[in-house]
């Protein structure tokens, strides 16, 4: 059912370099030596860790629910096209990632750690040098591949039922950046005060991965890199091209900010045309759903059927349907509304 979709983003930020343009934060508290489940959960709350792959849920809750899981999956599969921050963290901050992964595995009692990465990114040799103790799993270089559901599907060979959380299946899936933050707190005693992200402005050929302090405004970040642009012709897209949203210069870098893309407005938006019912959204949906049928039902408010509810629960708003739509219909926006009908 999973169809191959390759979204080509013509140039990528080099994942071998992870810049650190801002001064390192100072050590605030001593690290953590002994890891046991109770203190570890409090520790995660103390450092203020939320899911840094973009979800923003409290990690302590997730770990608490996952206690007893048999496998920890390090999610280094870059979800959004054009972002290489995860890979660059895997390559450059391997010490912290490995420490965080080991701590998590110990806290939940996982016996196996799987490192999930993407084809065509870091070579397996480089990974083996740094993460020799983990087993490797490669994922196809396509979008969407980094969603928990799709990782689970490849690992187990079965498609999980709608609404299933990985811990119900004995898997704990943690993003690389979250693990890096845990490792940083354990070793250096620094809470979540910074996050690696991809900064891109294609029109001037600017592609970089950098560690940026959380709480800085975007204006300040861009000033450091001496990027200036005209807000009437360009827009800043936060957290990826597919699932992100537009932000303004005065918004701050949050813990869940995956990337900042500065794009031309006219290339990012096209006017909606009537649906030709070509079915491209159906063919493209990575879960085999019927996006436009869902949209029609949401618009007519026919949202009570079991089929609708099952499909709406399954959808994780990856945005592929909107991206491939030949008529540029914002399907995923309507599906977001539909999520509220559940």
């Amino acid at each position: 059912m999973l169809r191959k979709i390759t979204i080509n983003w013509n140039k990528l930020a080099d994942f071998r370099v992870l810049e650190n343009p801002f001064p390192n934060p100072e050590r605030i508290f001593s690290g953590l030596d002994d890891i046991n489940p109770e203190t570890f959960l409090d520790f995660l709350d103390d450092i203020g860790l939320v899911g840094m792959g973009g979800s923003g849920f409290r990690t302590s809750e997730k770990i608490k629910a996952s206690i007893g899981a048999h496998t920890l999956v390090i999610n280094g599969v870059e979800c959004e096209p054009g972002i290489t921050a995860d890979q660059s963290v895997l390559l450059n901050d391997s010490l912290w990632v490995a420490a965080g992964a080991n701590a998590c595995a110990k806290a939940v009692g996982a016996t196996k750690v799987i490192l999930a990465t993407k084809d065509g990114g870091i070579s397996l040799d480089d990974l083996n040098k740094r993460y020799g103790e983990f087993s490797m799993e490669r994922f196809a270089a396509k979008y969407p591949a980094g969603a928990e559901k799709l990782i689970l599907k490849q690992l187990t060979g079965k498609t999980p039922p709608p609404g299933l959380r990985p811990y119900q299946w004995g898997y704990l899936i943690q993003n690389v950046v979250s693990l890096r933050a845990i490792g940083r707190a354990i070793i250096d005693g620094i809470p979540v005060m910074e996050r690696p992200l991809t900064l891109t402005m294609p029109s001037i050929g600017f592609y970089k991965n950098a560690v940026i302090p959380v709480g800085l405004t975007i204006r300040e970040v861009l000033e450091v890199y001496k990027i200036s642009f005209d807000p009437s012709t360009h827009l800043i897209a936060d957290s990826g091209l597919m699932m992100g949203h537009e932000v303004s210069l005065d918004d701050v870098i949050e813990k869940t900010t995956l990337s900042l893309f500065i794009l031309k407005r006219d290339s990012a938006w096209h006017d909606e045309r009537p649906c030709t019912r070509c079915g491209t959204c159906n063919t493209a949906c990575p879960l085999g759903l019927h996006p436009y049928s869902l949209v029609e039902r949401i618009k007519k408010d026919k949202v009570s059927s079991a089929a609708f509810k099952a499909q709406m629960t399954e959808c994780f708003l990856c945005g592929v349907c909107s991206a491939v739509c030949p008529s540029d219909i914002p399907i995923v926006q309507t599906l977001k509304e539909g999520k509220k009908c559940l």
Partner: protein
Amino acid sequence: MSIVSPFLRMGSRSSGMAAWALLALLVPCSIYSVLYDSTFIWRLIGYALIGSMAETIYTLIVKRKRRLVCTGSAFTAALIAASVPTSMPFLPMLFSILIAVWIVKLPMVELPLRFNAAMAGRLFLMLMYPAQIVNWGTPTPDVISTATPQELYRSEGFPLEWSELLFGRIEEIWEDLFLLVPGSPGETFPLLLLILGGVLCWKRIITWRTPIAFLISFGVTTTLFGNNMLFNLCSSATIFSALFIVTDPVSTPMSKSGRMACGIIMGVSNALIREFTFYTEAIVYAVLIGNLCAPLLDRISFIAQGRRLNNRTLL
């Protein structure tokens, strides 16, 4: 309006789809025009312009918008022109184009049940001008010289060689007698149409599911009735309609399984109508039957997918 994600677009755009299909339709028609009837291509372009103008007028009056180039309606009009005999007079063609564009194509855009506009226009021609629609005038006056290969096959049970049909010109024994052109201008060169179909699929203008299901189910059904499969596939409008009419996205289902089922319905009913009824142009009825089933098929596949999701268990 604020800009919302996704910021990335890919694949083909709907604005150019009809233009590409029209371009593909012009290829066999211009070859036909060069070989048999030099004025035909200009008439075809004229009809396409009439279709385009009809849509312009409609959008101007109903939606108060000005659109000058309407390739969708131009394609519909060209399809009608390419699938009727070249001897069709102007006035019936004008009526059928106006009916196809003004009544079937444009007002039905947002409705759940939609019909293929070109086929509706053809149905009108078949009902109102039954004499002209079968007037396959060929250069040699003869008793049965107006026959298409299909009609010959029906009346005399003699299938032509399918390999000769592929290239559109019947050689040897038939040449002296009839100088046969198998059917209407668009459907004259099945081999060329097959190649064009491959190109259009590759350009993502059409999808492969409906036409392939249509061709396979048609071939299987017609073989089951003891007919010559290759002759039936290569003659008449089978491949032409598989390429241009069955693939019409507006009137066929959206879902993958629905497309397969719709193609099968069209193929089987086409074979059934050819075998058991006395209607000519079975494809018109077959396509309209498939269009009728489209909303139902979409709903069935939607519900089936929901059920499949709900039946998934943990292990």
